[in-house]
């Protein structure tokens, strides 16, 4: 097994190198055969990495403990789905998973772009860039952090998975996040191809927009699922801790968000060409950085960084990629002139520019706060902790500004907004938000942060609902469809626009959930003998002792609780036989659309129905809105990505006297 996997990895490394040379040489000497041979080699890389990955999966499935990786990350007691999830639970395996998904995405790109067309000229460079990344990963996997290291004397059983990772979230969150980080490589490769060929128009954007959207949604969901996992498993009552690992995963997503907005400036107005290339480059750099940090957790200390085996390799690779990309960029900079000018500060254009400033500002603030402990240690040899208060204070106001802009930007016309236009578009949403804030005040919401946050959400909600209503009504009157049908076909026909609004709605849900749970979380702790109760919010929790069950490989203790006299709630602690010192938590959760009752069994004395339990109890308002936002985020993005319908006869109905873009 070990030898087979290792051969596949080393073979993939060799083929990737060949693909780079062959593709670039093919362009140089104008040989179609060489270019094609490079593409075939890329297919070969996909096949070999797939074979290596299947080898590891099979080794896990048959409990082949002669592989160190299998021994370290799985055990016989684990259920099969967890055994397979162990594939991406360790450093080497997750790097292999990363390389594997990249090879699959590369194959999809090759397949989608196989037909002749103008994109042809980009493909050799795209292949070369993808294979450079793949060569680096297989270099690591083959020679530095190999998942196929053999143990001389195979043990009888494995160590098993880290207890924190025994959760449904584990099966979906890490692969989503790693794939999300990986997928920025694809749009990046098109940007490099555009620079290399000098074809810096909209072609590369048109090709990479979809890939960027896919990367965006995968990484976005990866982050939401990460929050969900943390909420269910870590047991501190929250879902986002501004941990370095979380921060590095959100940064490329923020820069990517700036990119998918900013490219519209280029598509519509021929502006920001150079900037868009910079954005996608930064998103890619950050996702490589993120992969590395997520996989090694180096940010605790500079020394850990130096000690990490893969650290120096990642650093070298990242530096080379940055220098190379920027060199290419500055070489082409003279060709990246804007075709248009800004007509007015009150326009869609300037709102996109502010959008970019805010997203990059947030990303930079997070980046700076995340690496600052390293900086302080390196230059002053002092230990500095940068915890959640910093991120909340710095990123909070910027996120609020972002929310405001999310309401304003989409309603701004291109080029220039008139006073009538502003009045026409903003009267209702602003009025609605003011009314909403007044109502909130009447009902006793006096926290200024909550008022501001909910007020902004209501304003943006108003703008979105107004857009849907106006669009549907206009279509209803123009075509005679009934309003519901009109709404449907509106979304279907203008999927980019209305799908985008749905994504904005998803962000609103997440924002409202974050504001609600930040400001109105209730928390208490209590130690209760059987029959004793504690009240928090609308809940009275009564203890009934504990129940301990021995399952295969794990001992589970349930706290037996009743909520408000009737409902049962059973928070759990699990003690895995291989990790007795590291109990894992299963939160007792009672979710309603408006709030979650969240109970953690922290400790207990005695056993059975007479045991006394210590509980940490939280009431978290609106947290389910965050998860609903995640679902809507996916839905909205899918609608945006849905292939546009064939051009209809309606085109002909436009009178030629209407100047295109005069108001659109």
């Amino acid at each position, binding site marked *: 097994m070990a030898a087979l996997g290792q051969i596949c990895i080393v073979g993939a490394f060799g083929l990737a190198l060949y693909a780079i040379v062959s593709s670039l040489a093919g362009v140089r000497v104008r040989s179609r055969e060489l270019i094609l041979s490079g593409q075939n080699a890329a297919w070969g890389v996909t096949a070999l990495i797939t074979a290596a990955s299947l080898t590891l999966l099979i080794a896990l499935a048959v409990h082949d403990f002669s592989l160190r990786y299998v021994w370290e990350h799985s055990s016989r007691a684990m259920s099969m789905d967890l055994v397979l999830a162990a594939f991406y639970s360790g450093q080497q395996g997750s790097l292999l998973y990363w390389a594997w998904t990249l090879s699959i995405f590369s194959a999809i790109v090759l397949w989608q772009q196989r037909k002749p067309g103008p994109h042809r000229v980009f493909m050799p460079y795209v292949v070369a860039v993808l294979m450079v990344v793949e060569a680096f990963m297989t270099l690591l996997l083959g020679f530095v952090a190999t998942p196929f290291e053999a143990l001389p004397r195979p043990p009888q059983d494995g160590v098993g998975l880290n207890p924190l990772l025994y959760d449904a979230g584990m099966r979906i969150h890490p692969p989503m996040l790693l794939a999300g980080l990986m997928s920025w490589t694809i749009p990046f490769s098109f940007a490099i191809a555009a620079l290399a060929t000098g074809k810096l128009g909209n072609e590369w954007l048109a090709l990479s927009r979809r890939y960027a959207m896919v990367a965006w949604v995968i990484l976005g969901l990866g982050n939401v699922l990460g929050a969900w996992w943390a909420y269910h498993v870590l047991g501190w009552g929250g879902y986002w801790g*501004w941990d370095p690992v979380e921060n590095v995963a959100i940064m490329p997503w923020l820069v990517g968000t700036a990119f998918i907005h900013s490219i519209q400036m280029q*598509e*519509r*107005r021929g502006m920001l060409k150079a900037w868009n290339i910079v954005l996608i480059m930064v998103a890619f750099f950050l996702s490589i950085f993120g992969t590395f940090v997520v996989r090694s957790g180096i940010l605790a200390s500079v020394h850990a960084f130096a000690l990490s085996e893969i650290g120096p390799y990642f650093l070298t690779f990242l530096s080379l990629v940055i220098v190379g990309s920027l060199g290419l960029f500055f070489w082409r900079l003279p060709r990246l002139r*804007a075709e248009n*000018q800004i*007509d007015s500060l009150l326009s869609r254009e300037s709102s996109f*520019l*502010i959008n970019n*400033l805010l997203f990059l500002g947030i990303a*930079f603030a997070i980046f*700076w706060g995340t690496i*600052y402990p390293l900086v*302080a240690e390196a230059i*002053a040899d*002092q230990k*500095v*902790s*940068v*915890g959640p208060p*910093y991120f909340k204070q710095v990123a909070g106001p910027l996120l609020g500004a972002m929310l405001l802009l999310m309401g304003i930007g989409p309603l701004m016309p291109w*080029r220039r907004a008139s006073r009538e236009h502003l009045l026409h578009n903003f009267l209702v949403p602003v009025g*609605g938000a003011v*009314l*909403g804030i007044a*109502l*909130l005040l009447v*009902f*006793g919401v006096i926290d200024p942060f909550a008022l501001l946050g909910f007020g902004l959400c209501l304003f943006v*909600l*108003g703008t979105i*609902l107004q857009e849907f209503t*106006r669009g549907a009504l*206009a*279509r209803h009157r*123009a075509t005679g469809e009934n309003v519901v049908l009109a709404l449907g076909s509106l979304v279907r*026909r203008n999927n*980019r626009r209305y799908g985008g609004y749905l994504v904005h709605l998803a962000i609103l849900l997440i924002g409202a959930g974050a504001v609600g749970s930040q400001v109105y979380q*209730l928390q*208490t*702790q*209590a130690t209760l003998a059987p029959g004793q109760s504690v*009240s*928090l*919010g*609308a809940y009275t929790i009564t203890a009934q002792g504990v129940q301990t069950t021995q399952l295969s490989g794990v001992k589970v203790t349930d706290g037996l609780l009743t909520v408000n006299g009737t409902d049962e709630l059973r928070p759990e602690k699990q003690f895995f036989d291989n990790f007795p010192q590291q109990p894992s938590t299963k939160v007792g959760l009672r979710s309603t659309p408006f709030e979650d009752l969240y109970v953690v069994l*922290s400790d207990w004395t005695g056993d059975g129905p007479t045991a006394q339990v210590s509980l940490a109890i939280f009431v978290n*308002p*609106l947290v389910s809105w965050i998860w609903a936002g995640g679902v809507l985020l996916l839905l909205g993005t899918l609608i945006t990505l849905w292939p*546009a319908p064939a*051009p209809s006869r*309606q*085109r002909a109905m*436009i009178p030629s006297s209407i*100047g*295109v*873009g*005069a*108001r*659109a």
Partner: protein
Amino acid sequence: MRIASLVLLLAMAFAPMAVHADALDDGVRRVALQLQCPVCEGETVADSPSGLAADMRAVIRTKLQAGESDQQILDEFVASYGDGILTEPPKHGISLGVWVGPLIGLALGATVLTLLLRAWRRPAPLTPVSSGLTLETDVVDEFHRFREEYGR
């Protein structure tokens, strides 16, 4: 709109009904949330399951019972562990840099943006945009809306 705000209000209605079990527990948590657990990664003393964090919570409890203020307790922890114990980096010394960085970044970004806007913003005649625009469905619907809204 209004339904949505009512929904929000319903959710909020529970908030003022908070009955806290123990004011001392709240005090311990309030202080512990501001302290970084020295032996964990990215966990506060309030949330960490480690033994050291539990000891520190007990110390906080004793000090609160003795009538010390939150700030006094934090200062004592800083005296023995250094500034690194605080989750919120202080706004002086080396930690000041972490606060200043984003401000400088934003200021730089805003300056570049202003300069760019000034350079780009020249009154150009209102000619139809030419670059790569075709009549897409969304333009057609936009046109219908335009006609509807302005009655032309």
